C-alpha cells in the first residue's frame, strides 16, 4: 500500500460516545416499534378476499427478523477497509491480540500490546482519521512488566461507519 498516513492532529473537543449509542438505541427502538406496528396491521380487504387461510404467508418471527437484520448489518460493515486501516496504523509498534465485533452496534473492540504508552495514546486520533472509522476511544491501558518488547496492554473501541 503506497502513500503516507494521515496526520492525527485535530483540535476538536472529544466526541461523546454516549450520544452516538443513544442515537443508535433510539433508531433501533424506532425500527422495532415500526416492525411491531406492521406485524399487527390487519390484512387488507382485497388480500383477504383472494387468500384463504391455507395460502396466507406467515410473517417471520421476531428472532428470524433479528437474525436477518444482524446479517445485513454485518455485510454492510466495511471489514476489509477496516482491516487495512488497522494494519497501517499499528505497524510494528503494536501487536493486535484480539478483535471482538458487535455488528448490531457497528462496534469493534480491539485488544493489543504496544511498545510504549505514547504510541497507544496516539492510536485513537490516528484511527479516527481513517475513513471506515467514525470514532475511536481508548478504553484502557496498562503497563505490564512481564513483556519486554510490548509492555503496554491496551483496549480500544471503534465505532464504524455503516453503509456501503
Amino acid at each position, binding site marked *: 500500500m*503506497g*502513500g*503516507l*498516513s*494521515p*496526520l*492525527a*492532529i*485535530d*483540535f*476538536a*473537543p472529544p466526541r461523546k460516545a454516549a450520544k452516538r449509542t443513544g442515537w443508535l438505541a433510539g433508531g433501533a427502538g424506532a425500527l422495532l416499534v415500526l416492525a411491531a406496528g406492521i406485524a399487527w396491521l390487519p390484512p387488507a380487504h382485497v388480500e383477504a378476499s383472494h387468500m384463504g387461510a391455507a395460502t396466507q404467508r406467515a410473517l417471520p418471527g421476531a428472532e428470524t427478523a433479528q437474525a436477518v437484520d444482524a446479517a445485513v448489518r454485518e455485510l454492510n460493515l466495511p471489514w476489509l477497509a477496516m482491516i487495512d486501516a488497522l494494519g497501517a*496504523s*499499528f*505497524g*510494528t*509498534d*503494536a501487536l493486535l491480540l484480539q478483535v471482538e465485533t458487535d455488528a448490531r452496534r457497528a462496534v469493534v473492540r480491539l485488544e493489543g500490546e504496544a511498545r*510504549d*504508552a*505514547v*504510541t497507544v*495514546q*496516539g492510536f485513537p*486520533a*490516528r484511527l479516527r*482519521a481513517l475513513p471506515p472509522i467514525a470514532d475511536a476511544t481508548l478504553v484502557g491501558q496498562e503497563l505490564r512488566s512481564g513483556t519486554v518488547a510490548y509492555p503496554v496492554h491496551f483496549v480500544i473501541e471503534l465505532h464504524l461507519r455503516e453503509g456501503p
Partner: protein
Amino acid sequence: MSPSRTKVATLCVSLGGAHPLTDPPHPGAPLDILVSDKVARYWIMERPPELASISELDLYAADRFAAIFGDDPAAWTVRVDPAPRAERWLACAIPTSFADELPRSAAAHGWQVRRVQSRYIREFNRCCRTLDPDTAFCVASRECTTIGLIVAGQWRGVRVHPPLGLTTASFATLLQRDCRQAGVPVDALRTVVVGSLRERAQWVD
C-alpha cells in the same frame, strides 16, 4: 461562513478572527472549523525518549513551542502527531480561543463540531494517500504559502511563508531555502502544490 451547500459546513478562521457564525440548517448539523495557516504554528519535534504518558508529551511539546516561537503556551493549544516508527513528529498549535471557545460557541448555536484543523493539516490528510515518501507538500493559498518537507516518510521541516505574489521570492526560491535549512536535497523530493494559488507555484530550476 463558506457556502453550506454540502453536508458539512466549514467555518473559516483567519488572522482577523472567525467569519460570522450563522445558525445551522438543522440542530446538530456538522461543522468543520478551518484555521488559516497564517494563524497556526508548525514545527518538527524529535521523538523524545522514555515518554511515559501523553501529559508528558504535552508538556514537552509546550516547552518546544515556547522555545521556538517565544509565545506563551498557555494561550495556545498544542497537538502532536505521535506517529509510530517515526523519529520526528509534526506539531501544530493554534490559539486556544479557536480550539476551545469557538467550538463551544458553535455548539451553543446548535452545530455539531466535527473537526477543528489547520489548513495545511486538512489538505495533507486529503492528499496523503497519493504522496510519495519523499515529498515537498505545499499549500499555496491567498493568505500564505506553507511548505512541508518529508524524506523517507519522515517529517523534516515545515514553514509558513507570505502568499505567492506578495513576496519577491519565487516559489522555487522558497522551496530551495527551506530544503537548505532542513539539510534536504531539493532534487530528491517530488513537489506537490495544492491551494488556490498553486498555478503561481511553477516549479522551475
